[in-house]
């Protein structure tokens, strides 16, 4: 038990050591972007109030510390961000943090569901391809996953929308719940699952392809290793060898790649959300672009980077579970 806490603490410490410089870097990039925009906050305020004299603008710049050297401004801004203050959005008339927290659950739900679907289908496809290597199931699935790999998520989303929503009328075309419907618990659950099917599959399609190709490749590599031959020689059933010995090892690279692609998935979710009117961060980002609301955009960038960091930590935890040797390192 003591040893167990020990490796977890070590992992936490190592993660923090890596996370802090990354966070500082992200904040620095955000600050640079803020300063790349022509004009400053005082220009905006003067414009909104219909004009101001040069003298009063200079006074305001003094008051808000906009005349300080850049590094002092950065520290002031940095302290604000640490306090959870990412500014105010005039377009949405709400603090940026509040806006983001109201949209975060929808994006998170979409991503977790897509990740689960992608891993489930990807690993099953990969195992089938590896077991039937060179035969027709392998050829068919290889071609199918290559196609999935080449389909832009937003386009497959639109095509699914035409088929299942416009032509067949089986699934709703947008949103994540039926607005204004009074439903029982099971009714609500069914409603949100029906709304989620198309966006989740559109987002997952690309990742199904990645995971299945990877599972196939790493299963084929591991099947030839000595410990698998030993397991077979011991008389363990082929199913158990495949699942317990081969698949467990083959999953390690899959988990690594899944971790590397979390930022990619967030990017994909942003586009999918606009296709399906899914009320998440991606749609918020697009609305903010249209309104030129940089505070909101930077806030979304900050929170999605945090999300990626947290997800990477979870990936490390899953790694230690799949491969206990990692604990020792």
């Amino acid at each position, binding site marked *: 038990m003591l040893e167990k806490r020990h490796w977890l603490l070590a992992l936490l410490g190592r993660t923090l050591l*890596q996370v802090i*410089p*990354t966070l500082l*870097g*992200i904040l620095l*990039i955000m600050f640079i*972007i803020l300063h*790349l*925009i022509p004009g400053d906050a005082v220009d905006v305020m003067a414009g909104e109030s219909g004009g101001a004299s040069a003298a009063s603008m200079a006074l305001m710049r003094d008051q808000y510390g906009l005349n300080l050297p850049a590094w002092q401004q950065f520290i002031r801004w940095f302290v604000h961000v640490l306090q959870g203050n990412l500014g105010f959005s005039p377009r949405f008339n709400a603090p940026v943090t509040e806006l983001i927290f109201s949209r975060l659950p929808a994006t998170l739900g979409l991503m977790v569901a897509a990740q689960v679907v992608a891993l489930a289908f990807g690993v099953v496809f990969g195992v089938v391809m590896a077991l039937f*290597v060179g035969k027709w199931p392998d050829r068919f699935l290889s071609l199918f996953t*290559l*196609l999935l*790999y*080449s*389909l*832009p998520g*937003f*386009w497959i989303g*639109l*095509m699914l*929308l*035409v088929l299942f929503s*416009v032509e067949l009328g089986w699934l709703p075309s947008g949103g994540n719940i039926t607005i204004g419907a009074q439903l029982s618990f099971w009714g609500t659950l069914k409603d949100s699952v029906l709304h989620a099917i198309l966006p989740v599959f559109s987002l997952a399609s690309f990742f199904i392809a990645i995971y299945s190709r990877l599972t196939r490749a790493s299963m*084929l590599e591991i099947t030839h290793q000595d410990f698998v031959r030993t397991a077979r020689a011991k008389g363990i059933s082929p199913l158990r060898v495949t699942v317990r010995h081969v698949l467990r090892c083959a999953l390690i690279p899959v988990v690594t790649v899944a971790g*590397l692609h979390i*930022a*990619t998935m*967030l*990017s*994909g979710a*942003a*586009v999918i959300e*606009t*296709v399906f009117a899914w009320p998440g961060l991606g749609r918020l*980002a*697009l609305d*903010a*672009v249209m309104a*030129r609301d*940089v505070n909101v*955009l*930077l806030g*979304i*960038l900050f929170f*999605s*980077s945090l999300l*990626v*960091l947290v997800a*990477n930590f979870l990936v490390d935890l899953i790694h230690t579970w799949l491969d206990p040797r990692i604990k020792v390192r």
Partner: protein
Amino acid sequence: MTIIPESSATSPGRPSGALRQLLRNPAGVVGLLILLTVILMALLAPWIYPGDPLDMVATPLLTPGTDAAYPLGTDAMGRDVIAGIFHGARVSLLIGVSATVIGLVIGILIGSIGGYFGGITDNVLVRITVLFQTMPAFLLVIILLAISTPSVTLIALSIGITSWPTVARLVRAEFRSLRNAEFVLAARTQGFSSWRIIFQEILPNALPAIIVTSSVMVASAILMESALSFLGLGDPNKVSWGFLIGSGREMLRSAWYLTAEPGLALVMTILGLNLLGDALNDAFNPRLRER
């Protein structure tokens, strides 16, 4: 001096041999043919469809196949869809290739310097690489485009500066494994400068991996550009496939072909690049093919 050609001649992935392997692989040939078709479309667009593809030329919403002059139909503004697809190929390829070149230059520089020199330099460069892998690239590109006026140059530039981390990691790994190899020590004892060792001795060994990655990078740059112009963040003066999909989306219920046709062009191009990438990978790693 004689050491150098020998060492590169024995490396497994020689580009000339790989090309022969590639042409023997049916998937690679198909990918190459698709890509050549798209390049031809891009080159011939101004001759086959002269004039601005954004101009109205016929009755709006002609269904595909009803008028032989407009085989893929016309959109809600009476614009010829096939002309848009031909001209869109220019934008997609231009952005795909130039963003990849930018990404490759940054990635190779950062990866080789970090991998070759090691120590603090490497540490800092790895941190920067991790930083760019943590920020969702698409969001960063959206922000860069939101604070400026989108143009083809700017889009290529912003996709390029978010796409280099993969290359940097790849090149760094190659440099770390080779920086103490015998041919590098030999070059060093001959008094070659670090730059010469980096670019003429070690980098050629990383070339196969870089070539394979760059076909994937072109594909993802094209995908990213199409997503941007689908969202209305593309160059407003240029027709691109993403723009066509985005404008067709408004008519999705009545004229879904407007969304499907430019999307198919996009899918075929990406498929071609991926087939080529897989075939290149097989060609450069002959060991993997035997399985």
